[in-house]
């Protein structure tokens, strides 16, 4: 069983923020929502949590509709960060964790663990408003995962953090996933999705551009990237069948080909010229897929 979104649509007056999304998030997976600004990621999450009522469509978790009876199993980090500025970190976490049905001692124990994990144990008694933005974000992430939820929804969890902290948070997210939590997160950073997710959904202007297992998506996408390095002139390949695009930089050429089979033809053609230092076929990057799918739709 899993989280299923079917025909999910949300309209604000005449504006369609989310348009007919159909996805299935398998239990225990790490699912990435990829999209630029205004793609509909936050709106989708808010509908998931019941904060917004969908115009059409259904959302089910384990076959049941998500309601306030199951919020203890869900952890949510909103995109718009915010905590009670006047409260101390421990007071804030106590309050938010109790709302998730936790007991005082347990909260205290977990809080110590996570503060240690995020390398900020000294902040326990500090007021939220005294913390830096990054540290506030860590505290908020703790608030959303402290009750060991089954389903964790993180809206842009890494935005606004320095690279060191991004790594700390990524590590924690991976750990949570290894322990069995289903994690759904949104980002506009392709590299994060590539690194963390098995499954993803690319959104553009509320529409679902592509979704599913990353490897399948890459395989289905067809296009490959071919890198050739050598001293011979291979500019004639521009006109070769199956070549979509070619960039040359001194001895190195990066060629986009429509399918992997064209690589073989190219290989046979260039070995006739002699020695080449490198001949490599790469899987397409998400960036390529995103630009190909979204870029084309823009035009």
């Amino acid at each position: 069983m899993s989280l299923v979104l079917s025909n999910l649509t949300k309209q604000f007056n005449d504006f369609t923020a989310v348009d007919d999304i159909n996805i299935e998030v398998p239990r225990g997976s790490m699912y990435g929502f990829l999209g630029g600004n205004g793609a509909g990621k936050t709106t989708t999450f808010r509908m998931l949590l019941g904060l917004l009522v969908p115009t059409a469509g259904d959302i089910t978790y384990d076959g049941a509709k998500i309601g306030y009876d199951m919020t203890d199993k869900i952890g949510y980090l909103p995109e718009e960060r915010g905590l009670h500025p006047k409260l101390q970190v421990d007071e804030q976490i106590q309050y938010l964790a109790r709302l998730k049905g936790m007991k005082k001692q347990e909260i205290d124990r977990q809080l110590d663990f996570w503060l240690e994990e995020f390398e900020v144990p000294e902040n326990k008694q500090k007021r939220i408003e005294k913390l830096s933005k990054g540290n506030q974000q860590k505290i908020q992430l703790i608030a959303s995962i402290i009750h060991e939820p089954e389903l964790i929804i993180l809206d842009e969890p890494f935005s606004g953090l320095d690279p060191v902290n991004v790594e700390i948070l990524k590590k924690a997210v991976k750990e949570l996933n290894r322990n069995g939590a289903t994690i759904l997160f949104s980002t506009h950073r392709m590299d994060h999705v590539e690194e963390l997710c098995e499954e993803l959904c690319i959104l553009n202007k509320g529409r679902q551009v592509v979704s599913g297992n990353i490897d399948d998506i890459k395989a289905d996408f067809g296009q490959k990237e071919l890198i050739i390095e050598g001293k011979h002139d291979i500019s004639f390949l521009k006109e070769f069948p199956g070549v979509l695009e070619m960039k040359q930089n001194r001895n190195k050429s990066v060629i986009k080909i429509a399918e992997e089979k064209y690589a073989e033809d190219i290989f046979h053609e260039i070995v006739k010229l002699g020695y080449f230092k490198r001949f490599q076929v790469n899987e397409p990057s998400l960036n390529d897929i995103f630009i190909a799918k979204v870029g084309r739709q823009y035009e």
Partner: protein
Amino acid sequence: MNKFLTTFRHTYLSKVKAKSFIITTIIVMLLIILAGNFNKIMNLFDGSEEIGTVEVEASDAFTEQFSEVLSRMSGEMSVVESDGDIVITVNETVPVSAVVESEFNINAAQQAEIEIALEDMNRMMVMETLDLSEEEAALMMAEVSVDYETSVSPAEGEVEVEAGAEPNYLNVVIFYITVFVMFFIVINYASQIGTEIAMEKSSRVIEMIVSSVSPVNHLFAKILAIICVSLTQLFFFVVTIIAVIYLVDIGELISEFGLEANDRTVPMIIYSLIFLLLGLVLYLSVSALLGSFVSRMEDLQQALLPVTMMSLGGMYLGMFNLFDPGNLLVRITSYFPFFTPFVMPLRVLDPDTSHVTVLIGIIVVLITIGIAVYFAARIYKGSILSTDQGIIKNIRKFNKGE
């Protein structure tokens, strides 16, 4: 329910433990204690001393009679032949004149007693001089009786003010305290509940909260918590008042101001408490409603302006009509829900107000509370994730349930 209690507890404890709460509570408690000891404090600043003995320099006959008059009037002062605290030298003419010599200031009460005793002596001497009998003297002292007969009859339903019907000052004091306390708490806590709600919205923490607990549940827990905080404060005030009444001998103070209970005192106290409670619930619910319109703290005061104006208006209506509780303005405004909690207790002062009238007032307020709470819940649900800035725009939008 559990989550309701969590939010309730969190809000209640954080408010009660706040410095501002503790300080204002202590200040008002001290003021109550000060007020209870008003006469003692006044005496403290009064540099005069008590006189025990009075030496009189006059004829023996005068001295003897004066001694009698004075002892009838005051138990504290007695006439002695020598070594008195003060010396009164009397010139036995008609009218009597006297010089009082003392080494300290004589307090006002004893001064008055001495003067009255001398006046009595003077009266007796005049009677003697003119050779008047007791009856003749009594006739001179008699009060004139005047009856005013007006041909205009009171309009139907209008309260006829009985000649000599004075308001009961104790009841007036109860009313005064109720209205003042209600105004104080409403002004203080309206902004607190508005701040609570607007702060959660503007700091965006609300999105985390409502992903755990339903917005309506959260809102009601907050309103109830703030009402309980205000009642906690009220409780401390009432305990202090009761303590002052029992520990400090307040009877003297009360009689000094001429305060006496009558048959309307008990209903007055009960109705005052009911309207105090209703007033708090009404105003705090409306403040929560108004607080949920704003998304920035800067707009909060503007949004709460209606609450300030209404409570101010209600208080002034009550205060200005304190000694005319039956007039038309009072009767009309006592049914306007936002003024009812302030004005209706005033009408209870008036012996011609029936219990039915007061009951209607209570029902009007209850219905208004219901409406306010309904709209607060409805609007709050729609507005928590909105950051639109126009208040009017927000009201229109959320009321459509978007």
